[in-house]
């Protein structure tokens, strides 16, 4: 294939193991032409990152790499000497790594880290190098580039840092850019921005792109061809359209199946178009007419002071949660959704406002009375690894709520623990074992068992699914809905993942910078969002349909999520809002009901 920029055949990688070698990649073959975009998808452990690192000989010491050939233009990459590699790295092939905070040197300014690339490959230094660096930074969307050149990595937000690493990678004007999960840790809207940025640079420079990810739907927007990897091997290689419409390998089908089993968010300006909806758990019926308020917040505000400045994490929230419903809180980082949940159950003390449970005010309770109330409110956390005390047995962990509230002792305790384990689908023998013996999904089940142990009325699930693989997410979701039906529970479901929320929630509250900007029943929200931020959020989520993605008129949301330390005056969203008017800059819109059951905080809703 003479047109190929990079041609790899039969790449294999072995790592040293206690008893010999461990094969992590075998038989990898692919090629990529100039200007082409190749996506590599696989779960962790599939070898996708290692294989790309090996091409630049960046693997850790001791790794053994072999290949029939790995040719970049006419050069055999695996046989290059260090000086030859140094000339190639950064100049012909550049890398963007996953975690920008770790990838950048914390004690050097970003300006220095960018200009040294130019100095190295083009011999450009001093003022000229700075000029080029400023141009690059502006191009990747960093405002006030000239000043920020002298800042350090920790002074940037996550999204901005990733832009910096992209600028650094582009500084050498490479012909091939390898991006390893560059947006995995970023908010959805920021992710959309970064994808847009890279695609536009690619078009401009006719640069080839390899994008590694575990999120197949993202590739719908990015790739021309896709490599599917599983346990170190390529199981399928196909043009993107074909992969999504007719996947051949069972693993590819599983990946796609997990994606599609929840209906993707609809087109903002029309009905859901084209995207297949595989049958999944039926969308829950809207809240029953019994509108008893279980938990109510009035004027709930949380402020922190840190280093002399006051940060407002929550600004005057009014919210009713009805008995038996699942209310979802969605928002990006800094939205305050976790803070709201914690303020409701008072693991964080609100600075102002009140919370009432079953009609009585609980904001002033303390000690034994508060503990009594706590019995009815439980929480499941995001990280199954740190939510369980590694030194406590599973039985001790599940029993703790019972012990704290004095609800059972001795053999009754053991019986209740076994019962809870059974309800979450685990064997009773798990009780005597320790958390580290279980997988992530199982641990999350243990955490759920702990949450239902003392028969609460209300459970907060704070990003309870985010740390799990897609297939596990479906299982846990089913479990949660099961338990809800059996025990008439009420859920507050916090998530940043809109597709998951759609499958479980009755109502959705969208949060931005400590305020609720829209509140609506699920179906209605997805079909016709009123608030500009909700629209942008829904638009930013990748749809698993390449044809749709290509034709979708996407307008990325400009700017960065704002910081709670310097909230803009007026509407918190006005700086990024495409519909902002003068009034938005000065008047804070209140959450007002515009239709029965729907509320928006906007001066000019759709």
């Amino acid at each position, binding site marked *: 294939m003479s047109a190929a920029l990079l041609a790899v055949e039969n790449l294999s990688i072995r790592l040293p193991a206690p008893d010999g070698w461990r094969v992590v990649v075998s038989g990898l073959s692919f090629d990529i032409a100039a200007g082409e975009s190749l996506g590599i998808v696989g779960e962790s452990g599939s070898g996708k990152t290692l294989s790309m690192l090996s091409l630049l000989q960046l693997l850790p010491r001791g790794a053994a790499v072999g290949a029939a050939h790995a040719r970049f233009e006419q050069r055999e990459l695996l046989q290059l000497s260090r000086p030859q590699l140094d000339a190639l790295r950064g100049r012909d092939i550049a890398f963007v790594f996953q975690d920008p905070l770790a990838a950048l040197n914390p004690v050097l300014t970003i300006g220095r880290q960018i200009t040294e690339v130019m100095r190295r490959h083009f011999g450009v230094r001093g003022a000229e190098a700075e000029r080029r660096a400023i141009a690059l930074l502006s191009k990747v969307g960093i405002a006030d580039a000239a000043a920020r050149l002298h800042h350090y990595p920790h002074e940037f937000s996550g999204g901005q840092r990733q832009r910096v690493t992209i600028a650094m990678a582009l500084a050498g004007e490479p012909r091939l850019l390898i991006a390893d999960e560059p947006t995995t840790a970023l908010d959805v809207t920021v992710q959309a921005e970064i994808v847009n940025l890279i695609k536009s640079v690619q078009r401009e420079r006719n640069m080839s792109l390899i994008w590694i990810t575990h999120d197949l739907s993202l590739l719908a927007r990015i790739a021309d061809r896709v490599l599917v990897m599983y346990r170190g091997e390529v199981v399928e290689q196909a043009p993107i359209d074909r992969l999504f419409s007719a996947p051949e390998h069972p693993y590819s089908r599983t990946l796609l199946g997990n994606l599609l089993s929840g209906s993707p968010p609809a087109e903002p300006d029309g009905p859901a178009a084209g995207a297949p909806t595989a049958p999944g758990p039926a969308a829950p019926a809207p809240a029953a007419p019994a509108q008893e308020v279980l938990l109510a917040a009035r004027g709930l505000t949380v402020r922190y002071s840190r280093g002399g400045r006051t940060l407002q994490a929550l600004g005057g929230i009014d919210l009713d949660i009805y008995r038996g419903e699942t209310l979802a809180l969605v928002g990006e980082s800094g939205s305050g959704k976790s803070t709201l949940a914690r303020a409701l159950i008072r693991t964080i003390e609100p600075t102002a406002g009140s919370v009432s449970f079953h009609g009585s005010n609980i904001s002033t309770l303390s000690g034994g009375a508060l503990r009594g109330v*706590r019995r009815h409110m439980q929480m499941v956390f995001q990280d199954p690894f740190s939510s369980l005390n590694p*030194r406590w047995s599973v039985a001790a962990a599940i029993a703790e709520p019972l012990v704290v509230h004095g609800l059972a002792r001795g053999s009754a305790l053991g019986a209740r623990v076994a019962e809870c384990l059974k309800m979450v689908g685990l064997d009773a023998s798990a009780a005597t074992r320790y958390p580290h013996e279980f997988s992530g999904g199982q641990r999350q089940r243990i955490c759920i068992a702990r949450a239902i142990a003392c028969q609460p009325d209300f459970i907060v699930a704070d990003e309870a699914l985010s740390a799990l693989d897609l297939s596990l997410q479906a299982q846990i979701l089913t479990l949660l809905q099961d338990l809800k039906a059996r025990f008439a529970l009420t859920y507050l479901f916090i998530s940043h993942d809109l597709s998951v929320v759609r499958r479980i929630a009755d109502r959705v509250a969208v949060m931005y910078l400590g305020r609720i900007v829209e509140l609506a029943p699920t179906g209605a929200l997805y079909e016709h969002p009123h608030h500009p931020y909700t629209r942008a959020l829904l638009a930013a989520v990748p749809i698993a349909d390449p044809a749709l993605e290509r034709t979708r008129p996407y307008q990325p949301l400009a700017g960065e999520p704002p910081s709670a330390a310097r909230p803009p005056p007026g509407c918190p969203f006005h700086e990024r809002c495409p519909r902002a008017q003068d009034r938005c800059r000065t008047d804070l819109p209140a959450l007002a009901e515009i239709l029965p059951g729907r509320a928006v905080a906007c001066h000019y809703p759709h």
Partner: protein
Amino acid sequence: MKFLATLYRSPQTRGGLIILTLVLAIALCAPLLSPEDPYQVNPNARLLPPLATSQLSAASGATSQGATSQGATAQRATSERHLLGTDSVGRDTLSRLIYGSRLSLTVGFLAVVLSALFGTLVGAVSGYFGGWLESASGWLIDVQLSFPFLLLAIFLLGALGGGTLAVVLVLALGTWVNYARIVRAQVLSIRNQGYVEAARATGAGAARVLFLHVLPNTLAPICVVASFSMAQAILTEAALSFLGVGLDPSTPSWGTMLNDGRDYLVSAWWIATMPGIAIGVTVLGVTLFGDGLRELLDPRGLR
């Protein structure tokens, strides 16, 4: 038990444990192993080189220790072989060395226990509750750390008198800060772990969370600090006794032997050399153990 097996597998901790067990055994069996009474003074046998023999005359028989046995044998002219020679007043070096292990280990151990308890408490409370407690203890730690420890020890012991108890207290005073700092750092990070928040969300009280959840997970670094401060305690006791402000000079400790030996360095080198080697071996054992322990606990979590 599984933990002990892991310990044994690492060559460092294994080596350290072997040495320590050896020294501990010597200390425990001191009366059986020691050829002579370490306090027994023999003016006729001063400064004898290693492998020399001495005569115990009838007149110089009884001391308070082992009076009956010595009394019985005093009639016979016993010749004792001094494998490591004798010191400035005729005491057998080997015996003092063997008994010295008892003293060094005991003083070190007591100092470590005291400082660990106090330091952990301060660190845990200041880390968990923060506020004025944290500021106050932080300030206290800074003040203490602004004295080089040896200086502080010399100062205190000189001012308030020496003796075993005083030495233990002073040693504990010097090392509690290590525990406080590390425990505080650990507590700060554990405080934000999911299971702590889960316990608090369930309604568990502060005391329960602190003692049942947080502290057990700080045990690992505490053990590492403990082994290093044991080493430090042994070395410091030696230094203090060497300077004459520590233990009573007649007490058979390695430090006092060094004090004794320095005056006779040229003429009787063995008095000073032997205890140094003994200290070196013991501290080596402790340090190896501590190093190995730290490596075991560091990259591997209890996942």
